[in-house]
């Protein structure tokens, strides 16, 4: 079953260190009133082995849709998703299914991510039951191991149900389920947004430990710039279905070049900063049903000129590894 699978993976990793390459991905939704809404409009991105790509943007920017489209849940409307060299959008169902064990996801809602009717042991063992014909004793041993790594005493939690746990603990269980198969790529969709600050820190630290231990490659989706900075090696900023800026974390945070990235950073409130007189970004996110022509950010951009309405700025390298989609980037 996994013969062709492993060879293709080996070939891919020998060729290049790119785990995931998303090409011109578009994701449409048809609303119940028949209108088509484009959540993701032509996204290109790359995730390299061992790195964490932070995908940051405000609600409605399409970051979650992008994450799910990569997993083919549901598949994108158009575009390609190369995972370990294979285009997931072109695979037949059986092959895609076999690829899934290498692609895992952690979701935002810790409670909703776990089946309330099943026990923790079963939940974490499920991936192994599906994919490994190992004897139960072996499965049990491996599940206990991963439960211990995420900070539980396996004997104590094995037979408990999700509602007996707090949000942070549920998120630990989700994480255990996601890594028990040591996936090649882990997509985390707002994994700490529903948690309190102190619990958030526990989970972020745990993610970091897991990343080292399992040599995980991650895509970390969040609206929280401070969290993204903590976990990511590279960052991609999304606005209204498009990536507007991407580059190494330190570089972007030190010197954002897109006006939207800059506004996002200026919106962060810290205990040191006093509330400014003027908001960092005025106005509202335009409707994805009818996005502005040209640059999508132009309706709220302080630097907008006539050119911005006519010509859509491409996402182009402004320096090595740092790309910006803006006609007039911040110098």
């Amino acid at each position, binding site marked *: 079953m996994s013969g062709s699978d492993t060879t293709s993976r080996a070939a891919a990793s020998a060729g290049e260190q790119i785990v995931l390459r998303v090409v011109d991905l578009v994701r449409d939704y048809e609303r119940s009133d028949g209108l088509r809404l484009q959540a993701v409009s032509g996204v290109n991105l790359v995730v390299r082995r061992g790195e964490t790509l932070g995908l940051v943007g*405000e*609600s409605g920017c399409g970051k979650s849709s992008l994450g799910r489209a990569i997993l083919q849940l549901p598949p994108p409307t158009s575009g390609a998703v190369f995972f370990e060299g294979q285009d997931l959008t072109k695979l037949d169902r059986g092959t895609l299914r076999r690829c899934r064990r290498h692609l895992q996801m952690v979701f935002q809602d810790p409670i909703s991510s776990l089946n309330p009717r099943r026990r923790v042991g079963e939940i974490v063992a499920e991936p192994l039951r599906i994919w490994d014909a190992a004897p139960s004793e072996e499965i049990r041993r491996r599940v206990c191991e991963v439960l211990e790594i995420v900070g539980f005493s396996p004997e104590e939690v094995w037979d408990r149900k999700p509602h007996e746990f*707090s949000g*942070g603990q549920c998120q630990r269980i989700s994480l255990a389920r996601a890594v028990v198969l040591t996936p090649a790529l882990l997509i985390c969709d707002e994994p700490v947004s529903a948690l*309190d*600050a*102190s*619990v*958030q*820190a*526990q989970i*972020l*630290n745990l993610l*970091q430990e897991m990343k080292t231990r399992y040599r995980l490659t991650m895509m970390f989706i969040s*609206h*929280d*710039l*401070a*969290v993204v*900075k*903590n*976990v*990511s*090696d590279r960052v991609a900023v999304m606005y209204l279905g498009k990536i507007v800026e991407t580059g190494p*974390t*330190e570089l972007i*945070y030190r010197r954002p070049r897109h006006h939207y990235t800059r*506004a*996002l*950073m200026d*919106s*962060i*409130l*810290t*205990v*040191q*900063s*006093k*509330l*400014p*007189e*003027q*908001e*960092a*970004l*005025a106005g*509202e*996110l335009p409707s994805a049903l009818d996005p502005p022509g040209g640059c999508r950010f132009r309706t709220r951009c302080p630097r907008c000129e006539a050119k911005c309405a006519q010509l859509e700025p491409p996402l182009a390298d402004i320096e090595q590894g740092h790309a910006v989609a803006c006609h007039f980037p911040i110098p």
Partner: protein
Amino acid sequence: MPAINIRGLSTHFRTPRGVVRAVQDVSFSVGAGRTLGIVGESGCGKSVLSRSILRLVPEPPGIRAGGEVLFEGRDLQRLDESALRDIRGSAIAMIFQDPMTSLNPVLTIGRQIGEVLERHLAYNRSKARTRAVELLETVGVQCGPKRLDEYPHQLSGGMRQRVTIAMALACRPRLLIADEPTTALDATVQMQILILLKRLQRETGMAMIFISHDLGAVASVADEIAVMYAGRIVEKAPRADLFESMRMPYTQALLRARPDLDAPPHMRLGALEGRPPDLARIPEGCAFAPRCSHADAHCRIGAPPLRADGGHSFACWKPIDHALPAEPVRANGDDGSPKP
């Protein structure tokens, strides 16, 4: 004279698991034009506290377990229900986290703002409509008359929150209680709303109680900050004072848990282990002691009272001592902990 003065307020709940002490012996006052920020994690009782002020906690299971809420010479805890209804929404207004649930989904926003004006200020329909347009413009919702006929679901989250603010301000309240007003909003919209709230406060001179789990948001609007843990205020100080010389280890832990924007990626965060206590089973002694790196045996025996040191009060047996170069404080428990 403070706009509101709360003394020893306690709110409990009777539940099958026992008595939940959601708010325990909370005291503070807020002056006109001033903002008190209340910060704490979920389940620390901050929302119950905000609802207890206007007695919006359903009884039962809620129990008014003591204390007084003095507002303009009257104790709201002992006021009869009809007098209280006249205060709610007019002299004291509230805004909540989720504007979708605090707005009625089947009424237009014009109708909802109009109702407040008709109820408290006895406006007629047409006068109420004109005033509603003005109010919406004050909170930054443009093209008023058209907007009046829209329903809440037609607005974005930020716009809905602006509408609830317009409703809250309709009767020029002397006190605004904002319970996590920006938690459901994006960062850029959060900043818009906070700036709006501050501007409106400057213009009307109202007092404000701003409740949030987000230390950054609280710090940006509040003049004075109170930190809540397990139903009690554990530290309270003017904004600058609190962050420069915090005394309570919990406040420090809360601050350190947030990723620092200036720190490089992959920095290990100062995570606080464990989680807040169950309010039905608050541990004896200091409720924070089981998670506190400073705690010793003494902390587990008696609950520390909230002690004032100038304008800075804190409830801790082993406060962080800023006179000393390094922390944690001293290894010797006894001489490190001042007597109550």
